[in-house]
C-alpha cells in the first residue's frame, strides 16, 4: 500500500488553545478515508494544514511521499479540495467559475471538457446560470467539479454534505463512491456523522478535541460482532437476570429504560426468541455499533470520554 498522506505528530495552537494535538495518521492510495469528529474537534484545522492554508505549530505532513512545505507547488497540482461551503464567484456562471479555476490550475480546457466536468456533477443544464441563483447543494457539486477539474490524484472534501437536503447527500455520496471506483481517486472526506462515513469509507479516523481517538478499517471498527443491541422490555430486571445466565455479565448493561447487550448482530433473532419464550414482552429493539455508541457519547457531552478500545 502506497501512503498518499502521512501526518506525524501534528500540532496546531491558536494562542493557548490546542486545536490539534499530536495527531498522526496515514491515508493510502485508493482509500476513501473518513475523517470523523464532532464540530470543533479539529477536522477543518487539520485539513487546512494539509492544504497549506494553516501553518502547523509542530509536526510533519508528507503528501505523495514528499514534504508538503518544501514541495507545496508540485504537491498541490495533484490535490483537489472542497473546504466547507464553497460559495465560489456568485456573479459568474458555473461554466465561468470552472473555466477560471481550470486556468488557475494551469489548464486550458475546451468547452466540451468543461461541460463534461459539469455533467459529472449534474450541472450541465445549468452551466450558464450565475452561481448566486444556485442552491447550497448545487454550489457544493460545483465546488466538487472545481476540485476535480485538474484531475487530481488526491481529493480532500471537508464536510461535503453539510447543509444539503437528503437527495443532495445521496448524490454527493454516490459521486464520491464513483470517483473512487471508476477513477481510482484517493479521497479524504471529513464529517461529523459516522452514519455518513460508514456508507462510503473503507478506513476512518476519529478525532476528539484535536486528538486521535481511533484509526482503522471501517470493516474492523464497525464489526457486526461488536454491535450493541438496545432493547426495551416489559420487565428489564428479570430480563437481565435471564440474560446473565445466557451471556457473560460484562456484555450486559442496564441504561435507564433500556438494556444494552453487546453481541453479534446476527444473534438478534435468538435474543428475541429467548426473551419471549420466557414471557418477557419486547417493546423495541435498536442496533448500534459499539463505535457508533462511543461516537454518539463524544458528540453528546463535553465531559471527558475514555479512549475507544475495540
Amino acid at each position, binding site marked *: 500500500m502506497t501512503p498518499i498522506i502521512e501526518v506525524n505528530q501534528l500540532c496546531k495552537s491558536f494562542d493557548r488553545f490546542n486545536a490539534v494535538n499530536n495527531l498522526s495518521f496515514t491515508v493510502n492510495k485508493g482509500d476513501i478515508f473518513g475523517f470523523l469528529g464532532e464540530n470543533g474537534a479539529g477536522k477543518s484545522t487539520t485539513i*487546512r494544514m494539509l492544504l497549506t*492554508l494553516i501553518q502547523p505549530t509542530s509536526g510533519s505532513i508528507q503528501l505523495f511521499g514528499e514534504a508538503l512545505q518544501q514541495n507545496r507547488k508540485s504537491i498541490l497540482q495533484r490535490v483537489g479540495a472542497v473546504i466547507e461551503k464553497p460559495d465560489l*464567484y456568485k*456573479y459568474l456562471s458555473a461554466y465561468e467559475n470552472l473555466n477560471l*479555476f481550470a486556468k*488557475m490550475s494551469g489548464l486550458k480546457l475546451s468547452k466540451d471538457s468543461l461541460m463534461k466536468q459539469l455533467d459529472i456533477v449534474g450541472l450541465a443544464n445549468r452551466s450558464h446560470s450565475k452561481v448566486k441563483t444556485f442552491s447550497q447543494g448545487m454550489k457544493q457539486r460545483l465546488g466538487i467539479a472545481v476540485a476535480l477539474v485538474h484531475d487530481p490524484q488526491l481529493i480532500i472534501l471537508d464536510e461535503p454534505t453539510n447543509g444539503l437536503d437528503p437527495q443532495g447527500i445521496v448524490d454527493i455520496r454516490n459521486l464520491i463512491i464513483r470517483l473512487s471506483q471508476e477513477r481510482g481517486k484517493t479521497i479524504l472526506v471529513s464529517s461529523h456523522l459516522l452514519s455518513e462515513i460508514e456508507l462510503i469509507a473503507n478506513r476512518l479516523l476519529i478525532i476528539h478535541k484535536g486528538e486521535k481517538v481511533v484509526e482503522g478499517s471501517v470493516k474492523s471498527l464497525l464489526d457486526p460482532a461488536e454491535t450493541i443491541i438496545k432493547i426495551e422490555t416489559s420487565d428489564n430486571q428479570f430480563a437481565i437476570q435471564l440474560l446473565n445466565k445466557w451471556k457473560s455479565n460484562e456484555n450486559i448493561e442496564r441504561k435507564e429504560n433500556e438494556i444494552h447487550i453487546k453481541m453479534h448482530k446476527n444473534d438478534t433473532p435468538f435474543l428475541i426468541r429467548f426473551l419471549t419464550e420466557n414471557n418477557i414482552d419486547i417493546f423495541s429493539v435498536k442496533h448500534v455499533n459499539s463505535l457508533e455508541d462511543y461516537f454518539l457519547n463524544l458528540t453528546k457531552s463535553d465531559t471527558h470520554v475514555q479512549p475507544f478500545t475495540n
Partner: protein
Amino acid sequence: MFSLLQIELFKISRRPRTYIAFAAITAIVLIFQFAFKADGESYMNLMLQNVQDSFDLDKSKAINGYFMCYIILNTLLVQVPILVSLIAGDAISGEANMGTLRLMLTKPYNRSQLLFVKFLAAFLFTIFLLVWIAILSLFVSLLIFGADDMLIFRVKGDESQILQISKDDVLWRYFAAFGYAAVALTVIATLGILLSVFAENSIGPIVATVCIVLFFTIVSNINVPIIDKHVKPWLFTTYMVGWKGFFYIGIDNEGQPIKGSLENWPAIRNSLVILIAHIATFLGIAFYSFQKKDILS
C-alpha cells in the same frame, strides 16, 4: 503569472461595482463641462476678482480645454482615492468573504504571486481609471472648449498668483501629472490591499482606507505652522497633490515664464520618492503578513 493576472482582470471586469467608479467619474466630468459651457464666465469673475485691475485677460479664451482639465483634476483627485479603495480594499478580504480565498490558495501558486497579481490588478484598475479621466477631462474638454494658453490660479504665501503656460507647453505637463497621479493613487491601492489582508469582509478595509485618506487629507489642509512642520511631512496625503507642481512653471528674472521649465522639480521628485517608499512599505507589510497568515475564512 500572466494568466493569473488575466483572471484577476476578468473578475474585476465582471463585477458591477467596477463600473460605479467609471460612471461616477463620467457624471462628475460631464456636469463640470456642462456648467462651464453654460456659465463659465461667472466662475472666472470670481477667480479674478482680486486681480482684475492688474491683468487684462480675455475670459472667453481663459476657459479652454487645458484649464477645464486642471479644474476637474483638482476636484476629482480627492474623490478618486475612494473609488480605488473600492477595488483595492476588496482584493483579499472579498475573496475571504466569498470563500474563494481558500480555494485560490490551494492552487499551485505561492501566496506572494497571488498577492502580487492582486496588486497588479489594482494598479491596472487605477491606470484605466486615470486614462478614462484623461480622456474625459482633457481630450473631451479640448474638443468642447478648444486649446489655448493655460491659466493657473494659486496662493503662494500671502499673495495670489496667476501663472500663464503657453498652449504648446501644456500637454507634456498633463502626461507628467497623470503619471504622478498614478503613483499617488497606487499608494491608496496598496494601503487598501494591506488592510484587506487582515480582514474577512471587504467593508472593513474599504471604509478604513477611505477614512484614513479623508482624515489625512483633512489634516493636510490644516494650515497651522506646528502641523505644517511636525505632522504634514508624515502624512502621505501631503504628497498626493504634488502633481500640481508640473503646472507651476519656472519664471526668469524678468518675471516671464520659461517654456518647458518647472518651478521646483526637486520638491516633485522628493514627493515621488516618498510616495514610492509608501508603496514599498505597505506592500512589504502586506506580503509579510499574508505569507504568515492562517487562512481561517
